[in-house]
């Protein structure tokens, strides 16, 4: 019996895809990683099938590449590094298993998208702490496993948030439940005792942290619990325009420190113009040129108890801090209303995905850094862009305070036309050249993708060695997405 038949036996014939076009589509993505064609796409329905697939892969030493989001993919992590891999597509596992208002948590399978989750949560008065404008077909579980930054930093206590517990089939084929979900008892029994799978740690380890950022190299998550937040009763969003960052950083520091703001993020003019523009290039250019170089967006929210009073004293305090920081929060900036922007960022991106609207694709370079290093990172990126002939004025920049302001996700968006080889080549060079200088100036690539990986790992031998040991424990035959990260 061939591999296809063996897989068919596990998931059924409909769920094993051999269509060349679809395989071809997943042999590459919008990044610069080398293409490699998968042998099959397999679409399990449930954990039993996932476990059988992983066991089968161990027996046959077949690489598995788990995916859960719809295309386009951008970062190369779902492109097989070797030929003959089986893409394990979890997008059919779409159950929202539980929404628990009291404990502000949802348990979902990996195929659930932000669009789907938001709708279900809303019924219970909840919302996810979302990344900024994810793709409509982006898997929520995929996003949290990637440690994608979220837009409400005050609820981002730990970098693992909003991920809580998971059910996972490790690369070894073993089933494991992380965190409080580990037990004792079944999940149903745990619910009976009031447990809500909120704690991500087990007694002696915190395996969920190993799964996060692993790009599918450790195992396949079959459900996860996601921390949620309440939908406010009252929202007062603001925009602060500025030609420089220090005043904005000062205000952000206090907004997060004093828990004044829910949503809180900084965009440059090109970034916001890309989000808002519907017509290209005119509207985009008009917006880009009319907006100030930097915009801080934040929202002060009131909840169940006396929301007006809460929002009122918080606005008073915020205005006082803003005055001292020398910046001016407004409700509308160059015809962009804070309310409109709030509504945009509280949902996934409209189709087509905003990053692809302008030129067809977008290459993101992102890292973490403390606020004081960000101006240097921008300088480095501007220089590198200029050196490679990339128009700096069109480079999007997104600064997201994370982990309650302990650092910032600093993201550079390089919009490009994937059909233009010259542009692609320039961008390839740019991305290659930028990583080291960024690192030298305080950038930490906590989530290395694509061609950055080697540069990132080569300076931290001990972490690399330790990660390989962990990989040896969880995936002894190296069948899970081999070739990614330092594996």
């Amino acid at each position, binding site marked *: 019996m061939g591999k296809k038949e063996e897989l068919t036996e596990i998931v059924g014939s409909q769920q094993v895809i051999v269509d060349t076009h679809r395989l071809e589509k997943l042999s590459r993505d919008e990044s610069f990683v080398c293409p490699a064609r998968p042998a099959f796409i397999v679409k399990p329905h449930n954990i039993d099938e996932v476990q059988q697939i992983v066991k089968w892969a161990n027996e046959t030493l077949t690489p598995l590449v788990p995916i859960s989001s719809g295309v386009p993919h951008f970062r190369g992590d779902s492109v097989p590094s070797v030929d003959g891999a089986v893409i394990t597509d979890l997008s059919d596992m779409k159950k929202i298993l539980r929404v628990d208002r*009291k*404990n502000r*948590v949802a348990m979902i399978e990996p195929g659930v998208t932000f669009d789907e989750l938001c709708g279900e949560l809303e019924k219970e008065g909840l919302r996810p702490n979302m990344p900024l404008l994810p793709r409509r077909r982006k898997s929520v579980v995929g996003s949290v496993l990637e*440690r994608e930054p979220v837009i409400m930093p005050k609820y981002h*206590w730990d*970098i*693992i948030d909003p991920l809580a517990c998971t059910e996972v089939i490790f690369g070894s084929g073993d*089933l494991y439940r992380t965190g*409080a979900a*580990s*037990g*004792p008892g*079944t999940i149903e029994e*745990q619910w*009976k*005792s*009031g*447990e*809500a799978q*909120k*704690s991500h*740690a*087990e*007694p*002696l*380890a*915190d*395996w969920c942290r*190993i*799964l*996060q*950022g*692993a790009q599918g*190299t450790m195992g396949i998550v079959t459900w996860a619990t996601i921390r949620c937040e309440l939908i406010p009763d009252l929202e007062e969003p603001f925009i602060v325009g500025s030609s420089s960052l220090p005043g904005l950083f000062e205000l952000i520091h206090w907004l*997060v420190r004093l*828990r004044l703001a829910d949503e809180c993020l900084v965009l440059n003019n090109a970034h916001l113009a890309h989000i808002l523009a519907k017509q290209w290039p005119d509207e985009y250019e008009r917006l880009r040129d009319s907006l100030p170089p930097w915009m801080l967006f934040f929202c002060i929210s009131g909840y169940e*108890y*006396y929301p007006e009073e809460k929002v009122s*004293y918080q606005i008073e*305090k915020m205005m006082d801090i803003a005055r001292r920081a020398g910046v001016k929060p407004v409700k509308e900036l160059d015809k962009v209303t804070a309310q409109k922007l709030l509504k945009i960022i509280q949902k996934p991106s409209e189709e087509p995905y905003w990053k692809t609207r302008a030129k067809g694709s977008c290459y993101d370079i992102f890292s*973490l850094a*403390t*606020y004081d290093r960000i101006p240097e990172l921008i300088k480095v990126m501007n220089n590198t862009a200029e050196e490679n002939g990339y128009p700096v004025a069109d480079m999007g920049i997104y600064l997201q305070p994370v*982990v*309650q*302001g302990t*650092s910032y996700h600093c993201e550079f968006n390089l919009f490009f036309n994937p059909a233009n080889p010259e542009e692609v080549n320039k961008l390839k060079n740019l991305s290659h050249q930028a990583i080291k200088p960024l*690192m030298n100036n305080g950038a*930490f*690539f*906590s989530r*290395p993708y694509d061609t950055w990986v080697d540069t*990132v790992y080569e*300076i*931290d031998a*001990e*972490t690399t060695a330790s990660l390989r040991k*962990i990989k040896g*424990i969880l995936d002894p035959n190296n069948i899970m997405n081999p070739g990614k*990260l330092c594996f």
Partner: protein
Amino acid sequence: MALSRDAYQALEDIVGADNITEEPAILDAYAFQWGLKAFTGNPFGIRYEAVLLPGSTEEVQAIVKACNKHKIKFKALSTGWGPMNTTGSEGTIQLDLRRMNRILEINEKAMYAVVESYVISAQLQAELMKRGLTCNIISAGSNTSALPLAGLMGCGPTSVSTSYSNRNILGVEWVLPTGEILRLGSLGSGAGWFCGDGPGPSLRGIMRGYKVPLGGLGVFTKAATKVYHWPGPEVVQVEGASPGYTPELPDTITAHYITFPSWDKFTEAGYKIGESEIAMACDKLPPWMLSLNLTEDGREGVQLFSKIRSQTVDKGISVLVVVGADSQREFDYKEKVLKRITSETGGEFLPLVEEPATRKKLIWHRVRATTGARETFRLMLDQGASFGAADSWEFAVSEAKEGAKLKKKYIEKGLIMDDGADNAWGTVYEHGHMGHMDELFLTDPTNPASRQGMFGFMQETWQVSLEKSLGCHQGVMGDMGHDLFGPRTSNYHLWARKIKKTFDPNGASESSRYITAEE
């Protein structure tokens, strides 16, 4: 089993003659732990072969390498409070990290502090307060290490607003059991202390669970911890002399001790207080502990407990809520919300804590966490804790409810001290997202029947946790406990053993209180 002279010389060469000893009296001082007597009848555990006082990470590394070479086990401690600091194996050396006691950085704007192992929380918090900041302090007290890898679990009176140790950790410097220095996250990439995760998977995942490895997986020498806003003064001026200090606190920081008529109402209030983000502390300080907290000797404590019993234990379940604000408006809002929640849930303020001087004293005791030893050991009892796994607030309350129910039996038999069967300490975490509760109990270790009562209670609570899915207890340490809970808990023990085996192939890091590699 004394150390070979070669080994001793090698160790002495690392730390210098003043910082190593085999003096039996010193070794016995390190072998002593109060809690052992209850378990073994002897307060002295196994003697370490030598005690070393390393002064730097490099020295720790060299010691660990020497241990691997000479086949010696090692175990490190910071302030060393509790039986988990003893060794379970002959042939172990003790690393006392007290010379590693620097605060390396306080980054006010990025809201983190970097400490070495022997900075105590009171020191760190005092420095933070000068900058309008504070930190999570574990419930044991501010006399313990501020390193978020030192306390068993790491939650404390203010965890509703300051989270708990496992979730506060950023960059970490970790001497692995084989002697390599692992620098987690941004630290390993040379970018600073602000992140402990990546590149790629976060090695925080193997470093600790909701409990720390208790010295069984190398030595944590430095770590960054998140810090939080403090709405009080830069220095809390304290008048008077010990033990009856009178702290000066602004009127925009207050506290109420609220008793609710039932567990359900108590639970509901916890959620509401959490979600409304009004509390600096939301701390289930049981009436027994409150009584000892506020009094200056044990007898007074006992008397106060009997006085407030009818207003607290007999009426329901109580919580201490500390409210702090930067402005009068904020304060008024928070107080108004708290009063409304109290009214909605049928709570009543305890008049004792409404008295301004008592209230201030209590706030400072909790914020600084000064009275851990007072609330537990003052009356010469052995304190044990059962349950203590964290998850949702409702789950935490379930633990406390079961604890109280089981404890009543033992109290009625006179085997466990009568604390009204309401001596669960716990807290809401992160404004209602999670909760913790452990059932404290006090026994007389000089009384064999009481000791048996302690074992019986522990055993029953373990059993009930397994049967009713009430989590893996915080007190489960060592192979025996993990082998009991592990098979019902996703076999976490087997995976932990793999970590132990992989990262400590020579078994050098003494791990009898954590988990050994032996299956």
